Each structure stands twice: as C-alpha cells, then as structure tokens.
C-alpha cells in the first residue's frame, strides 16, 4: 500500500523549480557565466578535424562520381562481408582473452599485476607498424615460429601462414587486447568481493559464480570493449594489409589501393564514406541494444 503525502505538494514542488529557472539554459546547466566557452575547444576540434574532412570526402565523391563506381565494384562488394566476419571474429576472440586478462589483473598478486600491466601497456604504447612487423617475422615461412617448432622437432616443412587469410587474426587480437582489457578491468575493480563470498557460502560452484555473479557485473565493460574493437576492426588497415592474403582484401585495404591509383580518388572517397556510414549504423544499433553510451557517460 502506497503512502501518499498530504496535499498536492509533490506535484507543485516539481513544477515550481522548472518555472523558475527559465533564463539562460546554459547558465543553469553549467552553473555560472562564461563556462559555455568551455564548449568551444571541443566543438572547434570536432568541426575542423571531423566535419571538414568528411565534407571534403563528400565533395570528392560527388565531383568525381565515385559512388556508382564503388557500389558497382565487385571486389568492394565481396570485401564487405569478409571485413564484417573478420571484425566479428576478432571482437569475440579479443573479448575472450581480454576478459580473462582483466580478471587476472584483478586477482593476481602484486608482483604479477605489475608484470601484466607492464606487458599490457607495452602492447598499447608500441607503434602499430612495429607490432605488425613483429608478427610478420614470427609467421614468415622460415620465421621465428618455424625456428621454434623446427628446433623442438615438431615441424620440417616451412610454415604456410604468411599472406594467407587466417594470418591477421592473432596479430589483430594482440593489437586490440588493451581496448578490451581496460574497460573490463575498470568494471572488474568495482566487483564487490562480498558478493562472491556470499555466493560461495550459499554453495555455488566456481563456474556458476563466474556465470551468475561476476560476468553480469562485467557486462557493461565487456560490451563497450567489444563494440570498440568491432568498430575499429572494421576500418583496420595496416595489419590485414601486411599479413593477409592478397586475394582477400578488407575494405580499408581497397580504399588504400584506390587512393594510390591515379584517377580513382572519387571511388576511394565513396568507399570511405560507405564504411563510415556502416560504422555509424553499427554504433547506433549497439547503443540501442546494449546501451553503450551510458557506459561512457557513467565514467
């Protein structure tokens, strides 16, 4: 039974403040004069570095008639599902490894935590090209991996991974790992050990605890990490280009090739805009389904 306070005070109490604070929306929102100017740097940043280049791309596409070229290009059409599949697989793998890594970070003893963090930030802060070249040297037919396997007597013939379709996956998961680990770690740190203790006291097996107690609380971090990795992988250029098969280009590789071919800048611009459109759609859908933007807002 709901207890109602006497009189209509709740309604009127709500109505009154709103009627009072009409003047200066910004003023009331930011609480003071002049703070609206704080919006100027990010808006200028957004305008010059995002809106203007996209405007150029649109102009380039329209003027050089690239849109029909792009849509009619069979290689481009074939590369779209391929890119989606790659992004999906990379996201799932990165999510799996990233969650494990983040949980390890939380529960590890201090010395191991330091080592793991150091390793993570080394991945993060090493140049992308250096990382990719490291992977090339690993998977070359007679590269480092072959040297290890051959030394252990496990393999005689040279490896056949380099420039084949599965080659970019380990490298991309390696590159994307920090983007999953950090959000999941942020969520994992707020895990209350009391919940886990309570579950254990009530008789839950470890796997059940993981499934019912830990993972649901990590979910926002996992989702934002996975979406981030997915969206980034859609447009990833360097790693699939250098490690993947020549006959299975991703959308970004194609855009790169067309920009480097004379007279095809319009097609490349159209492809870039289409990719951007897809990425925006993916993000909007993810936001609707997973409420991703709330995660950014909360921090």
């Amino acid at each position: 039974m709901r207890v109602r306070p006497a009189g209509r005070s709740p309604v009127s109490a709500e109505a009154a403040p709103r009627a009072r604070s009409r003047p200066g929306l910004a003023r009331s929102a930011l609480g003071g004069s002049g703070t609206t100017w704080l919006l100027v740097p990010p808006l200028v940043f957004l305008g010059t570095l995002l809106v203007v280049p996209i405007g150029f791309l649109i102009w380039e596409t329209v003027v050089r008639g690239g849109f029909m070229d792009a849509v009619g290009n069979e290689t481009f059409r074939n590369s779209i599902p391929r890119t989606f599949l790659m992004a999906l697989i990379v996201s799932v793998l990165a999510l799996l490894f990233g969650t494990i890594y983040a949980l390890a970070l939380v529960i590890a003893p201090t010395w191991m935590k330091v080592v793991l963090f150091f390793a993570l930030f080394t991945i993060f802060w090493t140049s992308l090209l250096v990382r990719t070249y490291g992977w090339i040297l690993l998977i070359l037919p007679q590269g480092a991996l072959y040297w290890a396997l051959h030394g252990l007597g496990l393999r005689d013939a040279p490896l056949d991974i380099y420039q084949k379709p599965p080659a970019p996956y380990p490298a991309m998961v390696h590159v994307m790992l920090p983007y999953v680990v950090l959000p999941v770690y942020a969520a994992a740190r707020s895990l209350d050990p009391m919940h886990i203790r309570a579950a254990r006291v009530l008789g839950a097996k470890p796997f059940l605890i993981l499934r019912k107690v830990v993972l649901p609380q990590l979910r926002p971090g996992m989702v934002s990490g996975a979406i981030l990795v997915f969206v980034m992988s859609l447009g990833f250029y360097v790693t699939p280009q250098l490690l993947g098969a020549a006959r299975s280009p991703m959308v970004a590789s194609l855009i790169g090739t067309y920009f480097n071919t004379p007279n095809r800048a319009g097609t490349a611009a159209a492809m870039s805009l289409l990719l951007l459109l897809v990425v925006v759609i993916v993000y909007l859908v993810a936001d609707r389904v997973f409420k991703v933007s709330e995660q950014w807002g909360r921090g």
Partner: protein
Amino acid sequence: MDDLDRRREQELSRRALLRRAGLGAGSLIVLPSVLAACGGSDDGTSSSAAASSAAPATAAETAAATTAATAAETAASTAAETAAAGGESAELKALLDAITSKKVIVGSYGGGTEEARKKAWWDPFTERTGVEVVVVDIPGVLGDDMLTGKIPSEWDAFHGSPQETQTALDTGTKPLPEVPVFAQEDLFPEDYRKYSWGSFFLAYVPAFMPGTYPDDAAPKSWADFFDTKKFPGKRAWPGKSYIEGTREAALLADGVAPEDLYPIDVARAHAKIESIWDDLVFYDEYSQISTFLTTKTVAMTFAPNGIYAGMQRKGVDVNVVWDAVAVLNANNMSILPESPNPDAIQALAAFVAQPDRQAEFAVLTNYGPPSTAAFSKLTPEQIAILPNNPDRVSVTVDAKATAAVYDELVADNEKLFS
C-alpha cells in the same frame, strides 16, 4: 561505539570513492585509447606507389622535408674549384649563375636511389650554387596530380616515369616545362626526352640467394622463374599497386619474342601469372624484397636491379639472373608545371646532366645512365654490370603502348587480385 561507527562510515565512503575513482580512471584510460584508435587504425596511407614506404605501409606521412646541405658551410673557393675542374659548358654556367631562388624542392620515393642522388647530385649542386635542395616524400599519387595540373605544384620536380609523362601529355591541363636542350639525354625514349632529366634505366630481373639452387642447375630465364616444378620455392611478386614490367616478364616467360611484346596480350599474361599464383608472395614496398630473400620466405624475386645492388652494397650476396631478358624501364625526374622555383630547377636539370654526375650515380646505384657521354666516364667492368649495357639482351617497356592500355591493365590486375 561512536568511533567505530565513524570509522566504518569512513571506510565505506573510502571504498565508494575508490570504486568511483577506479571507474573514472578506467574510463579515462579508455578515452585516450579511443583517440589512439582513431589515430591507430587509419595509419594506412603510406606512400606506397611505385617504390618505398607503404604500407604500407606503412605510416601516414605527408611531406617530410629533409635538407640536403647547409649552404653556409661551403666556401666560395670550393665552388669555384668544382666549376673550374668540372669543365662546365658555357650554357650550364650561365644557367647556374642566373639562379635567384634560395631553394629547389624535389619529390622522391627515398631509399637507396635517393641516397645516391643526394651524394651524386644534390650535394655537389648545393656546393656549386649554394642553393638548397629540399627533398620531399611523395605520398600516393600526389606527384601525378601535380603533373597533370589537377592541383597546383608545390614542388619543382618529382621522380616519375615515361608512363606518367605520357598520361600528363594526354590528360594534363597545363603545358609541361621542358629541360634545356643541351641537357637532354640522348638514350632516353625520344618522345619524352625534352621532359625528363636525372633519368636512369632500371631492369626488372629475377634473383635468388646463393645456395638456393645448385650451380649447374640454376635458373637462367623468365621461363625458369615461372617454372615452380623445376625450380621449387615461392616467388616474390609486386602487389596490387605495381603493374610495371610484370606483364612483359610473364609474356617473355610464355615464349613471346622481345620484338613481339607490344601490344601486350593481357589475357595471355594474366593466364601465365595465374599459373603460379599459389606460390606468389606479394610485396607492397621494395624494402620487403630484401627481407623476403634473406629470411628465405621466397626462393626467387621479381624486382628492379637496384634493390639487388643495394643488398650487395650492404654485404649480402645475391645471384642476379642477368641471363634473362632484362625488362628495362626508364625512370626520370619530371619538372612540374608552374613550379615555385623554375630557374633553380632548370639549372639543377642541366647540372645533373653532366656526364660525370650521371656516371657517379650509375656506379652508386647500378642503374643505367641515360646518355652515351656518361658511358665514356665508366670503366668496362662498370659498364658490364649496367642494365642498359649495349651488349645485354633487353627489352624496354613501351611507355606509349602501356599508357594506351593502362585502364585495361588496371582492370586486369583487379581481376587477378580477386
């Protein structure tokens, strides 16, 4: 009791604070990662066209200016000495003395070729005239766009080829500047002679590392390159952006005589390349070729001879198959229309055309000089290893014929790579 309550409240609020700080810090860490993501994933527009960097890959670099020498350090006396000893013609001297610009800007693809140019051409030029030669990296097809007049020229010249000159003649909107008549190179293809300076001939030849094949059963021709049964192992082949020389090599391997190469039978070349497709490993940058050879990723490579010469200069032994019909292509420096320093670039073009300058460049790079006068400055041993050695069997890429079917070749390459 009060103390305990107070302590517990402090603990709780501390935990809450830590929780919020952790989330905040976590999100803060993620924010630069988002920014890094924007930077990290579009790092693709590496200047990969025709030669070095790409990649690739490479990393996104637009014009990176490097100064060739400081004019202030060169004494005027050295300049006079060089002028006297170099035997400059009167016309050259007139051009060099008439320069009023402070610098001249040149676009290049870097690598060993650029190092050689700096040593043989830019530094002596700066010593002689005091004019700085600013070298700029060529991103993508920016040089072609300037040559055809699509965008205003920011540079004075760039590393080009007869094919690009032909395209500019066909589709360009601005008239191409001409090199001084006395400095034109007599071995360069006639149609482009007046638009080219600082040219050289490169040869696409196969090569393999010593020990890959027994000495008595070594590959000797393009047919051997395409024969993966008799000569097993992978082949390094240019990636999607490079077409030059590939179709000619494939046709020569298929038995076409050098005289009958043009017009190119695109379908026949396509079929030949397709026949060894599974054994091909692709490179987007010339620098990957030496990596592939030294890491034994490939058994044989298709590449310009300068790459092999560069490896040999660094002490790595490479067996270049000069017995195969060398597919020669001419590369040049093209003066851009309406360039910022026209007087300086004309003088530079004439300076570089001197026989001893060309001879020095040829020795440094193992690329063929474009004028007969340069041959007179070289020893017979040096001439023997040049791509355009008159005694060598070679075929020069026909720029006009390839420019005419350029679109068809690009479309065929797309089909090949899909």
